[in-house]
């Protein structure tokens, strides 16, 4: 078919791609057209089939049906080596880097330059320096990957792809793990790559990024293409509707808060991180019931340590945590829970769920010894199941099967399980950390609505998030953290993202006001 059609102006054409997994039609006759030298976004919710599509382009999996044309010529891509020789490079969402090896070793792996029987490290180093310079991707070739920040690791991934001579770069959700600054740096790099003639396919579900950097967009939903548009002729709103298949509210609707009594007070808190350096340095804050206090900041400024100290997972060096009028600084996590402190942890899979447990066990984690669920020796399985059936319905966990294992749920549904569990035990205070990291538009909307309704029921919420947008749309008060200290408190209606951004970079609010 299509013998007469000229695809030569396209770097990539994928035509009628179909891929079935057991029980799922992951790609259903998907067409993708990417022009040479453009930045093309593929957007869609989690599970829409974006990554599956790209995995077929890169030869990681084989399509059941359909054809791939590279620069107008039909290509047989059976494994990554074929993709590499077709000058396609992929930067995976989870970096494909060997942690213990150096930058240069990672980059040349698989195509190592050699001198006699030995690996020619110096020549490799020089080649990498040249590439770094050419594309403005500065990295130290001898750093060990595990010692580098995520943004730098991503640069290594990009250089790795360029080292193999890639002309077509596929980036799978490259900004999911980046700070706003790192994201901006990445965009600069992408622009520079484009100006040197590279074609870029950019998978994401962050629509503001699509609007900021791409030229055309393919929207996918449930394995099908639901729209192909030019970025200049669309809007975030329209893209979101195409992605989700219904009207989506990108902004959160909420009434003004009616805060009650002070429920949490933190005084001069000092907490050390794993290496023994102070990560939280004399921080004070308070939360009243019925309000959301947002903590804005770039990742790694003490947020994790603050959360852990608050929930009893990390030792406090000095300072006090007062909850419901009682000094709980030395209390165990269990005691804090019993007093009514809920926690939505930043890493769902590490601290939120047990991946290999079914949903119904995950629902009673931390409450397993409650007389409702246990008679002291045995678990009351029937009661637990009934309780879980109920929660699954109430929070619309999909698929609504309580026997499914935690790891078999999508990220959004895993988060729903955690949120449901934490709300079900009726907390007075909720420590919420990165609640929507890696979730798609629909799930984000749900989590945000739930947080607002918790607030309206009188629960005090401390929200820690790296997403500035989320902080602004949910918080009643915003505190900005920098190097373990609060730079200032503002109300979202009286501030700008620029002001908070400056505080995130270490400027104190009072200094900003003096300068103004």
């Amino acid at each position, binding site marked *: 078919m299509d013998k007469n059609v000229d695809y030569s102006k396209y770097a990539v054409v994928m035509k009628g791609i179909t891929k079935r997994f057991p029980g799922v039609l992951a790609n259903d006759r998907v067409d993708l057209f990417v022009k040479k030298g453009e930045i093309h976004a593929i957007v869609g919710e989690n599970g829409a089939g974006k990554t599956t599509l790209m995995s077929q382009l890169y030869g990681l999996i084989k399509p059941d049906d359909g054809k791939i044309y590279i620069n107008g010529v039909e290509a047989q891509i059976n494994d990554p080596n074929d993709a*590499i020789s077709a000058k396609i490079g*992929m930067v995976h969402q989870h970096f*494909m*880097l*060997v942690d*213990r090896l150096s930058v240069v070793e990672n980059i040349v792996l*698989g*195509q190592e330059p050699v001198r006699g029987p030995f690996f020619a490290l110096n020549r490799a180093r020089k080649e990498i320096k040249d590439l770094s310079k050419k594309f403005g991707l500065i990295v130290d070739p001898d750093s060990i990957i595990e010692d580098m920040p995520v943004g730098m690791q991503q640069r290594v991934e990009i250089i790795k792809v360029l080292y193999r001579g890639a002309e077509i770069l596929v980036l799978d959700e490259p900004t999911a793990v980046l700070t706003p600054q790192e994201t901006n740096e990445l965009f600069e790099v992408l622009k520079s790559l484009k100006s040197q003639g590279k074609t870029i396919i950019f998978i994401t579900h962050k629509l503001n990024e699509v609007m900021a950097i791409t030229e055309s967009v393919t929207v996918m939903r449930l394995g099908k293409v639901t729209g192909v548009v030019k970025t200049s002729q669309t809007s975030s709103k329209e893209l979101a509707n195409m992605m989700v298949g219904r009207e989506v509210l990108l902004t959160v609707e909420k009434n003004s808060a009616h805060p009650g009594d002070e429920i949490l007070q933190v005084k001069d808190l000092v907490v050390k991180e794993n290496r023994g350096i102070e990560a939280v340095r004399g921080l004070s804050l308070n939360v009243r019931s019925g309000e959301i206090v947002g903590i804005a900041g770039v990742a790694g400024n003490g947020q994790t340590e603050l959360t852990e100290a608050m929930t009893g997972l990390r030792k406090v060096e000095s300072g006090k945590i007062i909850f419901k009028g009682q000094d709980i600084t030395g209390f165990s996590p269990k005691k804090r829970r019993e007093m009514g402190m809920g926690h939505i942890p930043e890493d769902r899979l590490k601290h939120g769920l047990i991946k290999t447990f079914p949903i119904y066990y995950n629902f009673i984690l931390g409450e397993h010894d409650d007389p409702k669920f246990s008679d002291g020796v045995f678990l009351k399985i029937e009661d637990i199941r009934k309780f879980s059936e109920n929660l699954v319905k109430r929070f619309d966990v999909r698929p609504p099967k309580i026997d499914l294992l935690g790891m078999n749920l999508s990220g959004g549904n895993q988060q729903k399980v955690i949120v449901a569990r934490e709300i079900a035990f009726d907390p007075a205070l909720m420590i919420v950390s990165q609640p929507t990291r890696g979730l798609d538009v629909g799930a984000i909307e749900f989590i945000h609505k739930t947080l607002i309704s918790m607030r309206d029921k009188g629960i005090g919420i401390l929200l820690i998030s790296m997403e500035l947008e989320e902080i602004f749309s949910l918080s009643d008060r915003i505190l900005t953290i920098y190097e373990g200290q609060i730079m200032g408190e503002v109300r979202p209606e009286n501030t700008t993202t620029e002001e908070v951004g400056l505080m995130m970079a270490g400027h104190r609010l009072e200094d900003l006001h003096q300068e103004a």
Partner: protein
Amino acid sequence: MNEWIQAIINVFTNPTFYKSTLTQSTPLILAALGGVFSETTGVVNIALEGIMLMGAFGGVMGSYFTGNPWYGLALGTFFGVAMAALHAWASIKYGADQIISGTALILLAQGITGFALVELFGQPGSTDLVRSIPLVDLGSFKQVPFVGVIFGNLSPFVYIAFASVAFGWILIYKTKLGLRMRSVGNNPEAADTLGVNVYNVRYFGVIMSGFFAALGGAYLSIGELGQFTTNMTNGRGFIALAAMIIGNWNPVGAMSASLLFGGATAFNNQLQSQSVLNLSTNTQYIFGMIPYIITLIVVGGLIGKSRAPSADGVPYIKE
């Protein structure tokens, strides 16, 4: 108390202690190096003990039938490589649990050697004496005080062990293949996306581990003694694993740790032979624990400092 101090001083001033350290360490160094090869590529090989046993038995068998101990060495390493290939086949191709596969191989080796011993030599316990690999006689160098005693008349295995460590270190850290071994052991998926054949590299690592561990085992039987006895490895495969861990999965580190254990064993033997101490036969069991107590203390002290390759022991299953 004084006689103890005297006895310890006697041990350390006697060159025999140092020579004994080298000979006790040799099988450990070779087996630990084998462990490094396997685990660098991400396959745990606790079967070292069994592979050594097969190497030891093969050595004697080859020497017995051909009268040439070098053929014995060849047969021993062939047995070792075959055992390792079995482990590789089960754990790489079929993704079997590597601990179970390794344990099975140890039991298999004990069974085969025990059975073959009786079948071929007609008696349990030990084989006939066979020709062993000749020692390297340095001639007049032997007359040099102290060092002459240590180095004058060593088994070639000792030299082979140290040369193998150098070979292993260069291969793993300075060659393309070594880079691939390390990458496959830490993140096989990443290596795979770059076109590295994870399975082949792992086969190579495991089979090399069989080769080196069998060399270590062969030393025990045809290195000096010229005889195989039931279970003659006596836990050395496990000590070698400990040496590999303490040595942080590095050939040179594993060698250093092996020397420590070899030294402890030599010290123990030399101390027991001191007549000034008047030890009863029973206390030798207590002394026999010395190397193992050192293992426990050193391993305990190293917790958190020594790190296995990230994907060590995790089968790689391609989707």
